[in-house]
């Protein structure tokens, strides 16, 4: 039943690929799992249900969720503006979107901290009303919004570009108002990719470390995110706790990835089915 491969080079390319995947990804991850199995189930549960650890999970999930929600709304607006409107400076704005990928997170975190501290350019405006950004959960959300901007914009943009204008025209001819056309015709088409963008940003925000450490202030129970707890456990050479907490983070990351892939596969099916 073996199908003959026409193109040469399968053995070499799959060999190199598998070797490198094993050494860089598979073996190190397996090592993490092996280290977890050294703990008994009771010990594992004891570690991950400590108050401080649970609080950090909550802070991580909450801030990542709020930041991704903000990014979903803003990303939708930005993508819409970039696809539908012409205005001076559009090219520059389009090019800027990827800045969070290009700028090291530590630099971003530091600059945002400096800006949003009570005596900073932006922070001083808010401090007058008693709102503190840096060193609070709001600060964490600001940093995560920065990190997540490109995900939603770049997910929604191509879909908006490819949207068939004939449906909108038909709705317009039938007398639908612009807002109605948007909510009834355009938005349902974009919603699945908006969700994908949200999921990607959420996944990224859950693990984010570099930009958050500067701005968070890292107070236990208040502004301590899960990656930071792992880091402090490592500095105390408490590898058991670090590994156990990491496993929980890893599982959550995979669940987010899995849900996202399912939504994406469904989208692809709908899109291809339409052709």
């Amino acid at each position, binding site marked *: 039943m073996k199908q003959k491969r026409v193109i040469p080079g*399968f053995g070499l390319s799959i060999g190199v690929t598998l070797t490198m995947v094993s050494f860089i990804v598979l073996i190190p991850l397996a090592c993490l799992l092996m280290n977890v199995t050294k703990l008994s189930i009771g010990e594992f549960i004891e570690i991950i249900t400590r108050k401080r650890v649970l609080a950090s999970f909550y802070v991580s999930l909450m801030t990542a969720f709020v930041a991704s929600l903000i990014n979903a709304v803003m990303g939708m607006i*930005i993508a819409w*503006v970039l696809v539908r409107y012409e205005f001076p*400076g559009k090219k520059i704005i389009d090019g800027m979107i990827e*800045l969070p990928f290009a700028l090291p997170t530590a*630099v971003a975190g*530091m*600059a945002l901290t400096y*800006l949003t501290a009570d005596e900073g350019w932006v922070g001083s405006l808010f401090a007058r009303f008693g709102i503190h950004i840096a060193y609070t959960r709001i600060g964490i959300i600001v940093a995560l919004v920065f990190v997540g901007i490109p995900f939603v914009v770049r997910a929604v943009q191509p879909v908006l570009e490819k949207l068939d204008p004939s449906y909108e025209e038909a709705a317009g001819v039938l007398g639908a108002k612009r807002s109605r056309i948007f909510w009834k015709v355009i938005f349902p088409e974009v919603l699945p990719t908006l969700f994908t963008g949200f999921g990607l940003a959420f996944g990224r925000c859950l693990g984010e470390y570099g930009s958050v450490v500067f701005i968070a202030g890292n107070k236990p129970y208040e502004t301590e995110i899960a*990656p930071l707890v792992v880091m402090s456990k490592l500095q105390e050479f408490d590898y058991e706790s670090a590994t156990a907490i990491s496993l929980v983070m890893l599982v959550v990351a995979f669940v987010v990835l899995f849900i996202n892939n399912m939504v994406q596969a469904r989208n692809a099916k709908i899109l291809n089915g339409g052709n």
Partner: protein
Amino acid sequence: MKKEERNAAITKWVLIGITILFLGIMLLLPLIVVLVQAFRGGIAAYMSAVADEYTIRALLLTLEATLCAVILNTIFGLFASFAVTKFDFKWKKILTTLIDVPVTVSPIIAGLIFILLFGRRSILYEWLKAIHIKVVFAVPGIILATIFVTFPFISRELIPIMEAQGKDEEEAAALMGANGWTIFRRITFPHIKWALLYGIVLCTARAMGEFGAVSVLSGHLRGRTNTLPLHIEILFNEFQYIPAFAVSSILVVLAIFILVVRSVLESRGKKEYES
């Protein structure tokens, strides 16, 4: 009808205003604050911070790690995307998922797995010690972490392009008797060269800026295992704001350069694709 048009114009400019305001505050302002703060003490203070011995050593280590990551990941990316797109085999889906794992894993976990694999508690530790190789809290660890976090960056750019191109051309060439290297050089490579270049640019950006994973594996020894982002963190935490921002400005300029290269490459690729 007039009123509808006027409303549409209002909506347009309100949305453009929101976009510019949001991106101006979230993306542009952090860049401006870095550059302003860097030069606050004058050119002399800037130069002394940038030309500082520890800064230059950190820059060299960053370049070393980046170069290793880019070379290795380019080789991997080419082989992996060739294997995945030009051949059919079992478990392909699992392989592509595994390749993507490093971007979904928190950088802290990326650092942790290499500590578990090569650190004091690993079975490899004694063996490595016997041949005088130190991985954790040393340069090899930093390089490994950098390779891990940027692992899929090039294959991710190549796979969609090669998938879209299909394999008919390669199969035709193979049937006419071309060998693997000729097929790759004459047929596959011309299609992917811009995507490859873009992948390399992205990989470089991320490798130079990686913070979390490197921070776990670096012993934070000034002048020995400090990369540029780690050096910035130390300066910032010591309240040496002018040097911290001065060193950051190098990375800011680099990020802007990367964004410009990206948009040039993208329009190049599009033009060639259309013609």
